[in-house]
């Protein structure tokens, strides 16, 4: 049987992943038409390329349906409880850098720290009768972070895209989102809190702790990791 390697199915993340493996002697490529999610592996036998949405890779690793997968640390930590027991970090790939941060409107000159956010939340709740809303798709990470830092009287509202726009649309007062350059935040008149770095993320090669392997697959895994210079 084969070792299954899950890679993001499109965009820069896929291309950079292909480059990273290619530079180490493992050729990954998409086959068939542009729309077909099939791929080929050169340079090592017994490895199958599985193209998936980056967001699904953590779940597939945890379920043991793929042996290796490339995805962001942010997604693994958000989606997997006790992630360290389900997957192992094999290599940080040096791209896809992004920070999960909390941002508020720049016009809130009184808010720069989490302490300010907590105090502003209390006052906001008194004034408006509901909890200050923070739009995010990283519910678990953000909730744990705010809890650890003693912020109360907020609520998270789900936003799966265009999160920065929620404030202008009056569906949230703050956002917790991934940013690499901060350009989108600035363009939307937001500023990052100075002490609210929830997580630093980058594209990472993970190995599933749950996927079963027979002797042949184990040998393939060893060979692949050694080609990649990651010895076990």
């Amino acid at each position, binding site marked *: 049987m084969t070792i299954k390697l899950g890679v993001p199915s499109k965009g820069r993340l896929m291309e950079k992943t292909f480059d990273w493996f290619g530079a180490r002697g493992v050729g990954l490529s998409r086959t068939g038409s542009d729309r077909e999610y099939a791929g080929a592996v050169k340079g090592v036998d017994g490895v199958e390329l599985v193209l998936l949405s980056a967001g699904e890779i953590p779940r597939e690793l945890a379920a043991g349906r793929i042996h290796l997968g490339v995805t962001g640390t942010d997604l693994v930590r958000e989606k997997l409880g006790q992630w360290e027991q389900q997957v192992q970090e094999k290599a940080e790939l040096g791209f896809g850098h992004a920070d999960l941060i909390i941002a508020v409107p720049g*016009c809130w000159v009184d808010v720069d720290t989490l302490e300010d956010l907590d105090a502003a939340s209390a006052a906001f709740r008194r004034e408006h009768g509901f909890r200050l809303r923070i739009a995010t798709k990283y519910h678990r990470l953000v909730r744990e972070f705010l809890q650890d830092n003693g912020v*109360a009287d907020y609520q998270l509202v789900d936003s799966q895209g265009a999160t920065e726009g929620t404030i202008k649309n009056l569906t949230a007062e703050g956002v917790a989102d991934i940013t690499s350059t901060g350009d989108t935040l600035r363009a939307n008149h937001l500023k990052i809190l100075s002490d609210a770095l929830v997580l630093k993320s980058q594209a990472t090669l993970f190995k599933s702790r749950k996927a079963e392997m027979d002797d042949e697959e184990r040998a393939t895994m060893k060979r692949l990791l050694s080609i990649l210079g990651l010895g076990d």
Partner: protein
Amino acid sequence: MAGKEKIRARAAALTSQFEAAGAVSVETSMLLPAEALLDLYGEDIRGRAYVTSDALRGEQMLRPDFTVPVVQMHMSDGAEPARYTYAGEVFRRQEEDQSRPNEYFQVGYEVFDRNNPAASDAEVFAVMQDALKGVELRAATGDIGILAAAVAGLETTERRKQALARHIWRPRKFKALLDRYSGKSEVPPSRAALLAADDPMLHDFPDIGLRSQAEVAARIEGLRAEAVAEPISALQVELIEALLVVRETLPNALEHIRDLAVDMPAITEATFRLRDRMHALEARGVDVESLEFEASYGRTSMEYYDGFVFGFYVPGRADLPPVATGGRYDALTRVLGQGREIPAVGGVIRPGILVELEDAA
């Protein structure tokens, strides 16, 4: 882990016992509107409860505890005074520890009574203790009301007292605030810069979002007042810290807290309540001489307890959750009662753990 039938039977036996103590048996829904729970507990409840939804009723939560639905039921059509018992499953999301069950039974006993809160506190504790008498357990007690009174009595601004009271249940944050207000920790540089600016409201950003510039200005006014307020004195901080570490048998703790009340007259009323409760417990046959009292007990548990708190633990088994917990939650009835309120105290037993202990005995 014992089978569900066995736990259900044990739960039924506890319910009969609570009925014999005067409680009326009640049922609640398993799906609760998420809004009420979220409003009450905040975002943290999402980490503990399962959320689901449909297009008609919106977000619903799988019952994480009985307190909210029982209080709502009582506030809408309950007679006074009232005693209730209930039994059923509660559901708790588990994201860190797979060995913790995400579904288990609770059997509860709740008292809604305006007369003699000390007697009601003692009643709930004694009824719980009696129901658990077959197994060897360690009881812990505390009283959030004493700490709340100490905070309310601090010689400082109302704003500071409100902030401290709001974070009683977050010990680390509470400590950080106390350090800030007593001048032990520095004001963050960004705040110092803001207050030093000629016009702090000056900025290059458009005004977006629901939080208005008037709200921003009001907070800056508050920060200015905070900056010139006298620090909380070292003596007062010491007294609060001395109170937080009180941990001894109830009679000794009472003595100790009375001594602290000499310098902290604001807690005098609360020490009377502690004394009255001790006598009421004694009258109920509870051995108060060996009953543990911990002034910080209950601070990291559910936010709604605001007076007497208690728990029953298996000695030497820190891995097991408490077999029973409970406390007074007057403020919760105020929040859920929409203008009405009633003093309330109650407790729950986890029959699943009880069966496990009884089987092992």
